[in-house]
C-alpha cells in the first residue's frame, strides 16, 4: 500500500536523508559509519507543484507533473506525481509513495486502493 522510502539517519544529529546520504552528514559532518539505514513512511502533503511541458529526455512523455512533498516523517522530497486524476492535485493535497518503472513516484492518497 504505502511504499516505504529508504534513507539514512545520522546517529549524532538525527538528520534523516532520502535517498540515504552516501558519504557523510551535511549537517554535522558525521562519517558514513554513523549513518544508519532507515525506512520511512511515504505519506505526506504537497507543498509545491509544477506541470512540466519541456524535458531534455524522451521519457517521461510531457506534460508530466512534479511535486514537492513534505513527508509526515519530516523530510521534503521531490518526485513525479502519477495516477488518473492529476488535475485534482494542488498544494495541500495528501499523497503517498508508489513505484513506476523502478522509480519512486507519488500518487494522490484518495486514489490509493488498499
Amino acid at each position, binding site marked *: 500500500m504505502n511504499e516505504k*522510502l529508504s534513507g539514512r539517519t545520522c546517529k549524532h544529529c538525527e538528520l534523516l536523508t*532520502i*535517498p*540515504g*546520504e*552516501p*558519504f557523510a552528514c*551535511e*549537517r554535522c559532518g558525521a562519517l558514513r559509519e554513523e549513518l544508519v539505514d532507515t525506512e520511512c513512511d511515504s505519506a505526506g502533503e504537497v*507543498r*509545491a*507543484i*509544477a*506541470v*512540466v*511541458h*519541456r*524535458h*531534455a*529526455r524522451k521519457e*517521461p512523455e510531457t506534460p*508530466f507533473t*512534479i511535486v*514537492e512533498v*513534505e513527508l509526515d516523517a*519530516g*523530510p*521534503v*522530497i*521531490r*518526485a*513525479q506525481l502519477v495516477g488518473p486524476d492529476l488535475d485534482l492535485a494542488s*498544494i495541500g493535497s495528501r499523497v503517498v509513495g508508489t513505484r513506476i518503472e523502478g*522509480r*519512486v513516484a507519488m500518487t494522490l492518497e484518495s486514489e490509493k486502493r488498499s
Partner: protein
Amino acid sequence: MTRNLLADRGAYVVGIGLHRYQRRSDKSYVELGLEAVRAALGDAFGDPVEAWPNVEVAITGTALLGMAPSRVMLARLGASGLAIHQVENASASGSTAVAQAALSVSSGQTDVALAVGLDKPEAWRVAASSAGIPSLEGGLVAPFTHFALLASRYQREFGVSDEEIARVAFKNHRNGAKNPYAHRQKERTIEEIMQDPISGSLTRLQCCPVGEGAAAVVVASADAIEKFGLDPARCPRIIGSVSRSQGFLEPGADADSALTVDTARRVFEQARVGPSDIDVLEVHDAFSVEELFYLEAMGFCGSGEAARLLAEGAWDIGGRCAVSPSGGLLSMGHPLGPTGTGQIVEIARQLRGEAGPRQQPEARYGVAHMVGLGAVCVMHILERGQP
C-alpha cells in the same frame, strides 16, 4: 580582525567592454574575448595595444571552455608575460573573476587587473552529477522546474498571479530592447511572454537564453588612476565584494532566498549602504520569478511585495531602483562566464551616466547579484566615481 581592503586601498572599475551576447556561432572564443578586452582597454586607456603592458594580472571567469583558455586569447594583444588565472564558479564565474581582480588590486599586489567573462555554450559537464549522490526524482527536476516549484509556493502564499510574474520578463525585454549588446533585443507584449509554457507558470520568454559572448572589466588602484591620468569621475569604486555558498538548512527551507539573504547582509554591511540607497540593480533573473525572490531576499521590499511594486513601476528605469536595466539574464542573456562580468559593465555604465536610453537618473550606487549552481552567490556594490 580581518581588514576591509576595499575601504583601505580600494579598487576602481576604470574600463568596460562587451562582445554582444548571441546565439552560438562559428566564431572562436578568442575573437569573442578579444573584442571585449580591447573595448575595455580602449575605454580605460585609449589605445588597447599600447595599454596592454599596464595589465599585471588577468582572471578569466568561464564555466564551459575547458582547461587553459586565457593565454591563447590574451597573447593576441602582444604576449606580455602577465599572470593568468581561470576561475570556474558556475553562473557566477564572471562575478568571481571581478572579485579576484578587486582583491588583487585592493590588496596592493597589483595596480591594474583585468577580469574577463567568457563562454561558448559547449557541452555541460557538471561535477556534482558524477559525484555519486543519489536523487529521488532521477533528473526530472531541471532548473526551470526547480523555480516553477518555488513559484507555485510563492504564488499560493502571497496571492501572486502568473501574469504578475510574467511582468518581470515584460520589463526586462523592454530594457534589453534598448541594449545593443543584448541577446534578445525585442520588446514583447505580455501576451507573447505568456505563450509557450515550459514548466509550471514559466514560459519560454521567462527563461533566460544561454548563448555566447564576452565581457571585460579593467580594475585599477587610485595610484593607477593618477599615474595614467584617467578621469576619476568615470571610475566607479568597488565598495562591496562578497562571495558565499549555501549553508545547511532544515528540510524544506527556502535555500535560494536564504543564500541571497546571507550574502546581501554581508555585502551591505561591508559597503556601509542599504537597499534604500541603491539606484541600479543587476539581479540573477535566469527565470522571471527569481527577480521577485531576490528583491525581497536582499531587502529591497518586504516578503510578497515585489510583484505589486513591479506593477507600480518601482523597478522600472526611472523608478525607485532600476532593476535589470541591461535587460537582465532574461533579455541581455546568460552566456554563463560573461554574465557576472557583464553586470559590472552595466552598473559602471549607469554610474558614469553613459547608459543612454537605459540611464537611471542620478545613479550613485549600484549592486550586482549572481547565483551559481551549487549553490553559490556573489554580490558587488559600486559607488559613482568622484570627480
